């Protein structure tokens, strides 16, 4: 099973260089060409670059991380087959193509989920998931949990309202009797702090 390692290499470089798009387009065109030529390293590169994003999309849409893992694999199998078959005509549309493929497969999955739940036998491997991913996830959650515990109650309230309950910052600002900017800055600071801790965790793990 392929592992979800996230963006590396050319995609990061691409993002740094391009807001204009030329380097990105060139990078994508090259990648697509190499995949069409059957270069396995290019396929791995594609997966490395986009798997985290696809996994996030699948998780958000299915609310099921186990299913999201499987769907991520399915998406890349479908995308690679389509690219090899020349179905992607414009290389610069690769991200949109991957997203569209992901959306369609996820929708198919959601349609069939109830039926499958009634018919399928449990699959031990699927139920177990990826141990390394699970451990990392647990560690990330512990870290976030510690950070949240050290937050001021009002800060936690802010995060709950914004992230769990879907209230806008403007709404929260009114409720807390603070300015919109103050609430935005406070939330940004909290998320940034936790994000940096998470990034540090990932960095240590990958060293």
């Amino acid at each position, binding site marked *: 099973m392929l592992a979800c390692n996230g*963006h590396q290499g050319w*995609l*990061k470089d691409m*993002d740094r260089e391009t*807001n204009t*798009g030329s380097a*990105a387009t060139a990078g994508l065109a090259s990648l697509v060409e190499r995949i069409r030529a059957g270069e396995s390293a290019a396929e791995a590169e594609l997966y490395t670059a986009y798997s*985290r*994003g696809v996994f*996030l*999309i699948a*998780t*958000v849409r299915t*609310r*099921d*991380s186990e299913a999201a893992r499987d769907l991520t694999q*399915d998406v890349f199998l*479908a995308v690679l*087959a*389509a690219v090899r078959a020349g*179905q992607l005509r414009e290389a610069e549309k690769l*991200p*949109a*193509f991957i*997203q*569209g*493929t*992901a*959306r*369609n497969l996820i*929708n*198919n999955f*959601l*349609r069939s*989920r*109830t039926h499958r*739940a009634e018919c399928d036998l449990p699959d031990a491997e699927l139920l177990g998931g990826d141990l390394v991913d699970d451990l990392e996830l647990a560690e*990330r*959650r512990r870290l*976030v*949990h510690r950070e*949240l515990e050290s937050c001021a*109650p009002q800060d*936690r*309230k802010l*995060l*709950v309202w914004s*992230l*769990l*309950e*879907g209230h*806008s910052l*403007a*709404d929260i600002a009114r*409720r807390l009797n603070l300015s919109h900017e103050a609430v935005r800055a406070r939330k940004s600071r909290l*998320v940034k702090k*936790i*994000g940096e801790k*998470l*990034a540090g965790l990932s960095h240590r793990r990958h060293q």
Partner: protein
Amino acid sequence: MLRETIDCRRIADGELLEKYLNGQLDPALQDELEVHLLSCPQCLEHAETLKVIRASLANAPHTTTSAGSQFWRLGWVRIGAAAAVLIMGAILVIRLVQDARKPPQTANTPTAIPPAPTAVPSPRNDAGNTEHPDHPGQRAEKNSRPVKKPDLEKQEAQKPDTKTPETQVATEHEPSAPPKPGNGRKEPSPGMNDEDAVELYRLAAVQAPPYTFNQPGGSASPGTGQGTKSSSAFPSMTGPASAFFQQGMLAYVEGHYDDASRLLEKVVQSQPGAVPANFYLGVCRLLQGHPLESSAPLKAVLAAPASSFTQSAHFYLAKAYLQMAQLEDAEREMQAAAALSGSLTAEAQSLTARIHALREHASR
């Protein structure tokens, strides 16, 4: 090319990642954002961070305790459940000892009577997803997946800015029901993962239904349901009960649910058949985080003849069951609300589908 339509600044300014994680984006914008996420490591990382925080908040004990009765969470529930078992055990022992000393008594629990609501701001709306035939995985049939799209700003905009003595609408003073330890809140199924827990949390969230004072005789106005009787069909409250009801609803409108509960309890004690009082008492208890205690008055509403409160009573009873993690009962009640014609029909239908999906998923 991708950033011509959506960019990091717009995502930050519009809180699009938060809305995305909460299922609040419309399908077209969701697609755009997802394409951007696939191309922008910074935004992807930010989204992942928010997602982890969100999951932690949904499961964190401090979410309940620190946020001033606003939130309930699973970790706390585990402790609460253990404490409840111990307390119940102790009470049982004490009662057994007392029973052994006293002659047996028959306990008659007075049942309250039925109540009513109006439109509840729906946090989510259904919308169809589009599919693109160019992409692998495409199916010919239309997607049936409900996409949640709550528009809180619109809800806010729909609320009246000013209150007049004639028409005073209750506004929610807190974003959702304030759950407290105990009182029937239960842990969801042990097999429930973070996503399920978040979904349950959102499904169980309660917003205070508006109340207007402009009805004849000060009766409650629960909405515009068709095929139901108006609140004027109920026996009008008289004397002290009427005064308590008015005071209780004033407290309700101001968001003082503790006071409102206390006053409405007095109404129900003196007039068990007062449907509006029962309804708002149930809602108040729910908003206070006492789902178990809210069920009796809400059931009393349902036991009364069909009225404009009936659909809402089913709806809020379903919410109570959701807060107690009783998904089967919740689905049944929500189905009943969805089957009735009224202002909550669409939301109840959507919630029924989501509860059903959650049940299916949790049972796997």
